[in-house]
């Protein structure tokens, strides 16, 4: 698919050159785009190869050298996921974990962000300092005690066990606080003079202004939850609780390890929702990276 889009782009770039050359750097720009288009074609080959492989028969998958275009496309690999492998169940688990994690982060990080940005209280500096320090702590540090604790609490193989460790994130607090610092004080002061309580100010004035950081936070949290893999792998111990990446990873190391058609179909199913989301919300995804990266 991609190579076919890359090729015409390269071909149509040719006749466009004379028209563009009236502007000084048009020729250079066409060349840049051609190189970029070829590069992008190569860059996306893993995705194309994944989709093509997912509709090949087992016989064709094993053939050497590999065929590019599927000879007799089949839906069997996908049928297996929707039939005996219970894709729907894993999908629902992934969605439940991701949605609760996103909502938790949005609500809790906004609340503490409001307190840190717009209120004075003893311990404020310490709290914010702790949040900033933990931004740097690698996940592997908390992993072992977290597992010991979650086992002690009897939460292994439950939704709370999957969700609670990710219900708030320091980066979310940072994001919300930074944005709320920019909300003008007189706006809140006026509401206070009118007798509005802090909760009312927070829900009626502050939150409606916080669309941009909430979108960023929501997208980043959803993405990391959907793709999260190591924690659910140890915290979900029966098929009942598997999320999509866990299910796919266990199938790809078990007896199906060489059934590439099946595994590629599973991969397509795992990445399609997030890719669709990304294409529709790409502006927000990219803004999120730019703002959190340039913190």
């Amino acid at each position, binding site marked *: 698919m991609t190579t076919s889009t890359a090729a015409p782009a390269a071909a149509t770039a040719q006749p466009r050159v004379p028209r563009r050359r009236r502007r000084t*750097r048009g020729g250079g720009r066409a060349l*840049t785009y051609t190189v970029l288009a070829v590069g*992008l074609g190569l*860059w*996306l*080959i*893993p*995705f194309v*190869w994944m989709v093509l492989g997912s509709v090949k028969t087992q016989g064709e998958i094993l053939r*050497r*050298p*590999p065929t590019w275009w599927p000879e007799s496309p089949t839906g069997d690999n996908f049928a297996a996921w929707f039939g005996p492998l219970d894709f729907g169940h894993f999908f629902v688990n992934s969605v439940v974990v991701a949605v609760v994690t996103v909502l938790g982060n949005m*609500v*809790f990080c906004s*609340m503490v962000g409001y*307190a*840190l940005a717009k*209120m*004075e*209280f003893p311990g404020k500096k310490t709290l914010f300092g*702790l949040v900033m320090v*933990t931004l740097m*702590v*690698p996940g*592997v*540090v*908390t*992993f*072992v*005690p977290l597992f*010991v*604790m979650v086992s*002690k609490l009897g939460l292994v193989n439950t939704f709370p066990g999957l969700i*609670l460790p990710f219900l*708030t994130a320091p980066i979310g*607090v940072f994001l919300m606080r930074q944005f709320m610092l920019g909300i003008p*004080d007189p706006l809140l002061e006026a509401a206070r003079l009118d007798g509005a309580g*802090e909760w009312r100010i927070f829900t009626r004035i502050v939150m409606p202004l916080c669309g941009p950081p909430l979108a960023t936070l929501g997208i980043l949290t959803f*993405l990391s939850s959907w*793709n999260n*893999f*190591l924690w659910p792998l140890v915290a979900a111990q029966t098929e009942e609780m598997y999320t*999509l990446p866990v299910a796919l*990873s266990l199938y*790809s190391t078990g007896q199906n390890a060489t059934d590439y058609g099946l595994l*590629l179909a*599973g*991969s397509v199913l*795992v*990445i399609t929702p*997030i*890719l669709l989301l*990304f*294409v529709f919300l*790409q502006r927000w995804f*990219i803004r999120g*990276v*730019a703002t959190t*990266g*340039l913190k």
Partner: protein
Amino acid sequence: MSASTTTAAGTLSGPRSAGQRGLGATRRRRQALVAWGFALPFVIVFAIFMLFPIVGSFAMSFTDFTARDIASPFAVNFVGLQQFFTLFTDTRFLTSLGVTGVFVLVGIPVTMIVALALALALNSGRGRIVAFFRVGFYAPVVTSIVAISVVWRYILQPEGLLNSALAVVGIDGPNWLNDPAFALPSLIMMAVWRNVGTLMVIFLAGLQAVPEDVNEAATMDGASPWRRLISVTLPLLRPTLLLGAVLISVGYLQFFEEAFVMTKGGPLDSTLSVAFYTYQQFGFGEYGLASAASYVLFLAIALISLLQFRLLRSKD
């Protein structure tokens, strides 16, 4: 702004009261309570699932905690620096330090150069076509490593897509993932593919902040495009480049998932990273040792971040 209102209210007693505007002591106490109320849900979750494990991991690294001690966590023995001594005499841990080092030292420059080249190419264009390319090159970032690993293993098979393509140009490709000499380079290649998008976006944002008139002035003075890049754009971009380097090195130091899903640390420990070593010790039930290894990694990350921020500051 707030200083003038404070003076008007006649309660200016010092810089600390600037934001409080004549709150009485009772009102201030009330606000503190309300503020902690707002912070409470976060603080509870943060304390239990973040602070406590960080402290717990630190404490565990000085004990002989194993999987059997989960039932009675406080009955373990204090062993001082024994776990750290064990770590640094374990050849596999030393191997993992080397593997992580190679991954970081090769991966960072390659990722940064590719990302910078893409950002520069996209920065010269405008409109929808740029958005299209940006989405395409960024796409690998949003995808699940587990799903991606399936297709990469399939591509890197001895007679897979990559070697078939190499055969067309007469190159006899290696058995990428099962050859100790090629497994780590394969994973670096994959990590570059998955991380270039992030840096590309950050560099693009940085490039857009470079004032155009500086470049125009250089053009008027007859500077070639290459000369402008080296002498004008890159020096102006240095803060962004260093931030990108910090971000990516913190990520690459924790190198784990690629090895976990692609090679399981093999063949012959050639892709055994520090984080993977830690995970293995956790799997063996050696919780004390795993905690010690994780703190070594933490220390390395903290040092490198500090060093890079120091560099960033001193050159400006």
